[in-house]
């Protein structure tokens, strides 16, 4: 694990931003050129949503991975979190602009359809996180910053729930995401294994 961490230390953060964002453009290009099948709007919406959920689970996994497996991804946590927000935004934009299209129906959907209300709630919770992800905010907010960023927990639960509520019939995949989110959050509880073994380091704030 030491070797892996050394290699990771050499990986510049900008590369994570770059390669993390590339699939968004690639998928859009595929959608334009028929690569996403005959219904590219839903396909693109689902691809962006899926990537957002995966990045969300990865963000939540960073702390447990470091404490339980010794894998240190802390350097990339902000990039991964912002990429997650980026894909949630792409997902929302596709829904607004390409999928629903009609302003009246957008508001009606947000108000009346619980799975959309919940998804929207998750997005709104992510806004202050994205806005305060810069160094200046981290410094200014001081001890409130980690507390504010615990909103990640609520946002990730809402995101996973949004997917569970969206599908028709009994389907496994959305439950796996919800399970992963719950597991990652469960590992943060005071009774979780790594919590008992060692006190949390001051700087990471348990996020």
């Amino acid at each position: 694990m030491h070797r892996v961490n050394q290699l990771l230390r050499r990986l510049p953060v900008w590369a994570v931003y770059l390669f993390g964002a590339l699939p968004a453009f690639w998928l859009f290009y595929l959608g334009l050129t028929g690569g996403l099948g005959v219904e590219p709007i839903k396909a693109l919406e689902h691809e962006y949503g899926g990537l957002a959920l995966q990045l969300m689970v990865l963000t939540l996994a960073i702390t447990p991975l470091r404490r339980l497996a010794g894998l240190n991804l802390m350097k990339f946590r902000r990039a991964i979190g912002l990429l997650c927000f980026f894909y949630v935004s792409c997902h929302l934009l596709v829904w607004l602009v390409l999928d629903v299209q009609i302003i009246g129906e957008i508001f009606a959907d947000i108000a009346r359809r619980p799975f959309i209300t919940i998804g929207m709630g998750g997005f709104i919770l992510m806004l202050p996180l994205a806005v305060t992800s810069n160094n200046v905010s981290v410094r200014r907010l001081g001890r409130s910053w980690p507390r504010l960023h615990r909103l990640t927990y609520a946002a990730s639960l809402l995101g996973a729930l949004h997917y569970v509520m969206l599908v028709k019939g009994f389907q496994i995949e959305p439950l796996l995401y919800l399970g992963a989110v719950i597991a990652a959050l469960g590992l943060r509880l005071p009774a979780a294994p790594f919590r008992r073994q060692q006190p949390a380091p001051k700087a990471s704030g348990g996020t």
Partner: protein
Amino acid sequence: AALGTSVQAEEALDPNTWEEVTNYCNFYEFGTGKGDPSAYADRMTTRPWSVTIDGLVDRPGDYSFEQILGEMTLEERIYRFRCVEAWSMVVPWQGFELADLLNMAGVQGGAKYVSFETLYRPSEMPGTAYKVLDWPYREGLRLDEAMHPLTMMATGIFGKPLPNQNGAPLRLVVPWKYGFKSIKSVVRVTLTDQEPPTSWNMANRREYGFYSNVNPDVSHPRWSQASERRIGGGLFAKRQPTLMFNGYGKEVASLYEGMDLARHF
């Protein structure tokens, strides 16, 4: 609403392409992805095939597919197809009227409903490994809906035999109802005197009614049914308004006279 929409219904329909119709399917026995049926449905054996027709009929029995074809006259019907998920297509079907099949077996006086069952063969249907629905897939119609001349059993599209993912070798097509009513790969047709249980209604009573007539005024609890997206318009396809009874109001509205369609959705 039926009067206004019937005018539009008479406009010439421009069918979707073979590629669109055969690659964007819901057939959960092969998986829940839209591409799963075209990827996996070739595993389904469709020869030999027989349909059990039983219940309140004069001549119950197992009718082989060839025997059925021998008795029926095939014709082409170009119908709008509206999925409950708010997408739509126009499909050129070949087949025969369901009424002809039912008359072949002889409908008895007491029959009020028809129930249908899809093939359930787990060894050839990877999607059935998960209990997405309570297999086998089941659907049903009221007898007058089943006997309506628009209601057909399709055996082909675009002049070719039905591809497996579209419900080979024969499937129901009820153009004024949401697509899930048009049950695929039918192995059993039963005439009954009681409203039969249907798969999506069993899975979620609140979201999928027995009738499931296309109705822009009755929302699905999770999305609006007021508009739909025609498949094939690409990434910037515009939504189009959904028509009452999918545009077949002139032909079928009388079946539901006096019924509250918001309650019997």
